[in-house]
Structures are given as structure tokens and as C-alpha cells.
């Protein structure tokens, strides 16, 4: 049994036994792709009563390397408006790239994204959204994001 499946199995049982508020596992049938639904719990008018769907894609190098994480569209699931989230669902967040550490988990990453949404009050996309989306790679991990805005 490869090590990463064991670790993901533990994460899954942890997510199911101690679910964090606003974070629920929608689909985790294998150790390749998981879908996690998140809700922003405070009364942020941008996201109130909305649910968003995150897709986690794991490689055998997980958790030494970060998973691919992005928002996906689905029935009743939109890409949240945020100055760091592109309209194709790619997220510019340092913990998903250079800031990744193997002690992070699906739960902790979901929580980071949840709080990133909760702290936002700008109803806008990144300034280079159109340009990025037109030429974006399939995997957000192939994008070299430049993190220089810590305010949002």
C-alpha cells in the first residue's frame, strides 16, 4: 500500500469524525480526486447562504508535495468572487504552492481557503483574470503565482 493512500485514509476518517464547521466531504471515492464543499460561516454578504466546491487532486508524492486545489463549477456551485480566485477556479494562495508544508491536510487547506473568503469584502476577480484564464494551464500547480498582496 503506497504511503500516501494510508495518510489520505486517515485524513478522510478525521474529516468525517471531526468535521469542521462549513467544511464537508462531497466525494472521496478514491485517493485521486476529492471534492469538498465549503461554506463561509460568518455573515459575509458576498458568500452568505452559498456553497462552493473545491477539488483536490493528489499525486503519489503527496504530502511531500502539495495537492492541486481549485474551485470547480457544478450544479448550484459557482466559483466564488475574490480578488485572488480566477474565474476558472484557480486560487492564488501561497499554501498551495511555495508555502506548502507536508503537515498541511485537506482539512487545514480547506480552512485556509474558507478564512480567505471570510476576510474578503471585494466583489471582484483578479485584475489579470481574462488574460490568465485564456492561457491558463490545466493544473494550477503549473502556474507560478507571485504572491505580493497580503492584504486580502
Amino acid at each position, binding site marked *: *500500500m*503506497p*504511503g500516501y*493512500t*494510508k*495518510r489520505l*485514509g*486517515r*485524513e*478522510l*476518517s*478525521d474529516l468525517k*469524525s*471531526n468535521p469542521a464547521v462549513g467544511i464537508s466531504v462531497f466525494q472521496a*471515492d*478514491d*485517493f*485521486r480526486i476529492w471534492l469538498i464543499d465549503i461554506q463561509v460561516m460568518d455573515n459575509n454578504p458576498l458568500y452568505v447562504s452559498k456553497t462552493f466546491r473545491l477539488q483536490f487532486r493528489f*499525486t*503519489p*508524492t503527496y*504530502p*511531500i*508535495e502539495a495537492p492541486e486545489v481549485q474551485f470547480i463549477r457544478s450544479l448550484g456551485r459557482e466559483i466564488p468572487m475574490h*480578488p*485572488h480566485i*480566477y474565474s476558472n477556479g484557480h486560487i*492564488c494562495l501561497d499554501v498551495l504552492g511555495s508555502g506548502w*508544508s*507536508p*503537515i498541511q491536510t485537506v482539512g487545514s487547506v480547506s480552512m485556509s481557503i474558507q478564512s480567505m473568503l471570510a476576510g474578503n469584502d471585494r466583489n471582484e476577480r*483578479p*485584475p*489579470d483574470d481574462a*488574460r*490568465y484564464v*485564456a*492561457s*491558463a*494551464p*490545466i493544473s494550477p500547480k*503549473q*502556474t*507560478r*503565482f*507571485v504572491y505580493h*498582496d497580503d492584504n486580502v
Partner: protein
Amino acid sequence: MLSSIGYSTIMDQISDPSDWTGTRLPSLLMLDSSLRCRICKDFFKSPFMTECTHTFCSLCIRKCIASTPTSETACCPICRAPVLEIRLRRNQVVEDLVEWFENARAAIMTTAKEEPVVIAVPVASTDSERVSSSERRGRKRRRDSVDEEPSTSVTPESGDSASRRAARRGSRKVSYEVKLDIGESEDEVAPFDNGKKSDARSSASSRGDSSFIILDDDGNPDGLVPCPVCNVVMTPQEVQIHLDDCFKEQEAKESRANPSSSSKSNDHIRTLQSQPLSTKSKKPLQRLPKLQYDLFNDSKLRSKLVELGLPAYGTRVQLQQRHTEWVSLWNANADSNNPKTKKQLLRDLNDWESNLTKYAVQKVSANDLATWGRTHSNEFDDLIARAKKNVQKKLHPEQQQGEPNTVEVNVQNQHEGQDSVPKELKKVDGIDQKISSRTDERMDYDCDVLKGTLITPPVSSDAFM
């Protein structure tokens, strides 16, 4: 891809700290989780400590360090303090703790699940014995009294059935096996020379067997902590002073390595260490050095791999990855108390590699590319139309001169965000058909260029925000 059967068996096999919730001993959850590596979430295997005093499995931290581009950039996964592989130190105490806990875990779990949670019930009797898990643990330390009078220590509850009693006895028995050495060392060690502690001890003993010492959660007399080395109980301030001497004393004893010289108080330490020492002395395994891959050309690297007995096929990247993984596996194995044979290690390496290739094949699955083609079909149409127009323009004035090269340049200009267009053009089934169905034969080359731009995007496209 993992079948659903494989998935469910994995889910059944794994143990998790959350197994303790809902049992009689939920407090063991924290103990269980602190004996696990934060990287693999499994019990520590050959635990090693970083300079920032965080502990990981040998293999986990080595892989983690190996994954960073240079050794200078390696940092602790927990606190991000710089980590050097040569500064890693074995954490023997944790290794022993894990071994003992793992041995006892199943038995403790069975007992903890047998009986429903009993809330601490105050009893009217004078000896104030209670059936709460923390105090029961305290009682274990006073082994003698419990052994002599097992019946008095059990709370006379109205609904105390025989089976429950039996279960409780079982649990006590299990815990004795775990704690026996520690209890012994504490009982028989010469009292550490300080007034306060001997006061606590003498007052406790003067109260006799039926009396009850106030014990904290760790099972020690209130406010006192045990020395992590010799387990003698004292106040926290005293531990600070005592610890240095205690370490020196223990080291001296170890270096002498003379069984007759060590006192009985160190017996448990020696029994635990005897195993690793014996296996080590049998055949010391050498650590493998890391390679500066820049200094090795392909053939040198291949011969290096052959020298190590590893397969030497594949691309340069594969060779490097294979070597890095092997060094991590090998060195972690050298750290282990029960090292595997080279054959087993080679099998591990093979498993790792087949997983990687399996994943690589999955990644470029037709499904993904079909979705990609569908979502970007508008852009494909647009680009094809433009390319056609350009070709027409070129063809008309200068017969046969409109080489696709110029088209390529135009296409590139429309994608400013990209650094370069990959030279290698991939044939992709779904999209290939899609595009060729819309275009005549003359356009084939141009379309390849377009596909190259869209399907295999450059590895690094900068996005500023």
C-alpha cells in the same frame, strides 16, 4: 486507478487516533496522536529530531528534505526553521514509547471498548477511591497495594456485574505490562536527595495502603513531575537542575556498557536499548551520500546507479528521482532498528516508481483532455479562423511562400502571458479529431502549432495580481 475494494480495505486497515473517541479512555486520543508523525500520520518509524526539536519518521523528514531544490532551502515542516540532514538526531525515547504503546494498543483498545464510559462516582467510603480513568492510572503506580488488596480498590457499585469486574481486572493487567518497568524503577530507586519529595513519599506511606495520594493527570503527586530520564518524581524546578546530572550519569553508564555496574533503576532503559544495540553491532549499515547531480553527466549517473544495484533505464529526470528516492529509503532503513534487506528495499523502490508512472499515465487521461477541448472549443475555433485568414493572406500575394512559421509567430503574439511555445507537439486523440474535422489538409501543420500552444501550456506562465 484504485478500485473501490482496495479503497475500503485501506480504510479498514488503518488505525487512527480518533479510534479512541467513544471508548472508555478518550484521553488516550492525545497520547495516540502525539506518538504519530505529522507527515505520514502513522506511528513514528525510526523517529528523528530536528534542531528545532520537532520529531518525524526518518524516511518522512529525509524525503521532505530531498524534495527541496537545495539543501539550504530545506525547512522544518512544522516551524519552517532551517533543517540540515546531517544535524538530524535519533529520538530514542520516542521510539521506545511508540514500540510500547503499539504493543499494548490493541489490548487497551479492546478493554476500553468493553465497558461503557463510567463517570467518576464519588464514594462515601473514607479511602475516597474513585473509578475514573485518571485516578485509576494513578493507582497503577502503587502496584503493591493494589496487588495485595485488589478487592478493596474496586468501588462497590450496585450494578457491578461479574463481567464488568473481570473486564476491569483485565484492563489493570494490561496496563501493568506497560507500566511495570517504570513502576519498579520508581519504587526501588534510591530517594533523590531533597526534602520536599521525601516528605511527599513518607506522608504517603505513613497513611498506609488504604490512603489515597492526590495524583495529577500524569499519575504523579500533585505539582510534581517525573524526570524524563530516570523517572524520579520531583518539582519542576528541581528537574531542571537534576536533569544535567542525570544525563551525565546515564551516559557514563552507557559508555561503560557493563551490565553489572548499572543499578536496577536503569534496568528498563537497558532492556529497551538492548535490541537496537544488538542489531547494530551485527552489521552497521553505511549511510549513502547525496549527489550533486550537476556534476554527473548521464552516463556517469547511470554507472552510479548500476554501482548501487539500481535499474539504470529512463530519462535523466527519472534517474535523478530514482537515486534521490533510493538515498532516502536507504538512509532511513539504516536508521531502523530492524533494517530490511536490500531486496525488500529494491521492491519498495519499484513500488514507488510504478506508482509514479501509473499516476503519470492517469494524468494525461483522455477524459481530462476531452474536457479541456470542450471548455476551450471557442478559442480553438477563433484561433483556427485567424490562422486560416493569415495563411490565405500570405498565400495570395506570394504564391507558396506563406510558410507556417509566420503563422506561428502571430499565434504567439496573441498569447503574451506565455514565455515560450513548446517545440514538442503532442498528438491528442480527442482534440486531434475535433480540429482536423474542421480543417482541410493544408491546415494540419498550423493546427499542430495551435494545439501545441493550447494543450501543452508552458510550465511557467506568470500571473500577477
